[in-house]
């Protein structure tokens, strides 16, 4: 089954794992403080921000892809950033894919973390304060460990969503081998060019991956529910 495969068939797999890993780490860094703020703030515009973050969950990838193509390009902020190192656009770059994936997977990461922080409640932080622990330290040593199941769920969902991202990447990637040709777009190419065996291998891998993700999520949730009870 694995004989005579094109030598470049594994490049998209490696690239996809890299993209999903970097995106997940970046999203966690942005999503955690955001989720903390959403969980505890009383600002009147809180839910407006929350809604904006959630938009990519509902919008079709074509909408996201189209706006990102314009935003990352020479007429948008992406072009300005690319100018810093002499490039014109962030489209067609790995960096561009990371930025796009951060937007696309943000809601899947923010939501579980926010829920976890809400579940932790004010009480542990108040207790920490009475013990003269600084809020900053209390966040790291009390709130964050208590919310770790939410962080883990968010990370897994963010990773899985990035692995499964297709439409956005198709629209801004430019299909460059080793740079922007990820698994989902490689499968699309193989199907279009009637290389169904290659498509099958990658697509089968995706199915197995999705199965493992969902199963392990369920097991994790059970495990955490068990430890709490």
């Amino acid at each position, binding site marked *: 089954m694995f004989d005579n495969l094109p030598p470049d068939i594994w490049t998209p797999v490696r690239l996809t794992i890299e993209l999903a890993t970097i995106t997940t780490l970046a999203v966690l860094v942005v999503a955690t403080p955001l989720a903390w703020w959403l969980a505890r703030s009383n600002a009147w515009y809180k839910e407006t921000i929350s809604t904006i973050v959630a938009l990519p969950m509902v919008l079709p990838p074509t909408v996201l892809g189209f706006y990102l*193509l314009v935003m990352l390009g*020479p007429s948008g902020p992406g072009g300005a950033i690319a100018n810093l190192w002499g490039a014109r*656009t962030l*489209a*067609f770059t790995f960096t561009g894919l990371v930025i796009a994936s951060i937007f696309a997977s943000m809601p899947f990461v923010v939501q579980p973390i926010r829920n976890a922080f809400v579940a932790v409640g004010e009480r542990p932080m108040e207790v920490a304060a009475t013990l003269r622990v600084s809020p900053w330290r209390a966040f790291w040593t009390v709130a964050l460990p208590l919310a770790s199941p939410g962080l883990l769920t968010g990370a897994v969902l963010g990773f899985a969503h990035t692995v499964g991202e297709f439409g956005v990447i198709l629209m801004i990637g*430019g*299909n*460059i081998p080793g740079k922007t040709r990820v698994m989902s777009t490689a499968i699309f*190419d193989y199907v279009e060019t*009637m290389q169904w065996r290659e498509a099958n291998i990658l697509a089968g891998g995706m199915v197995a991956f999705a199965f493992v993700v969902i199963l392990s999520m369920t097991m994790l949730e059970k495990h955490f529910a068990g430890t709490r009870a």
Partner: protein
Amino acid sequence: MNFIKQFAVAISALTVAFVTPVAAGTTHVAVAANFTEPSKEIAALFKARTGHEAVLIFGASGAFYTQITHEAPFEVFLSADSERPRLAVDNGYAVPDSLFTYAIGKLALWSRVVDVTKGEEALKTGAFSKLAIANPNSAPYGTAAIETLKALNLYDSFQSKIVQGSSIAQAFQFVDTKNAEVGFVALSQIINTTDGTRWLVPEKLYTPIRQDAVLLKRGANDAASKAFVEFLKGPEARAVIQKFGYGHD
């Protein structure tokens, strides 16, 4: 009984009234992305002349072929190449004697950032970071672009500059949004715009893009579908095809 009789008469009268003009049918045409604009005009003319409705579905020829082999609800296939319609015939998805070349595609270099009117020189100076083409594996305009670059001995040095759109429509989009400074597009896509600069790629640099049409098995006995294929060969359709910068036999 009398009532039932009257009712039956009324129903049959209604049926006649509604069904008779409905000799006009509907055909579903899978259209290669580069032929989007002309096909819209042709479909409008077709409707005006015959009353038949042509529902147009746009996409990459490669994707269409895969869909056709999986029972896609298309009756006519306007490909961007000649290979896929022939495959459709060989593999029993299309009516053999319906195959014909409806247009010969022209490749153009287009830019909204740099001056490409002297195409060969502009390419050779290489004063751009990204060159958009359609995916050469699935879109004939992409193949023609690669052939052109090879003919100009530029392909190897341009590897890192090439970005691929999944169809020629996307290659156009990349150049239109200026994400790529230059790109190989179909002449038909830019014939109605004065935006940017262009260079009509000399035809000796690439294999002619013969765009073939074929009547699919699903449409073999369908009046509207057969009529559409005939209409596409007629003078009115030809005039539109020429207007958009295509050649024909």
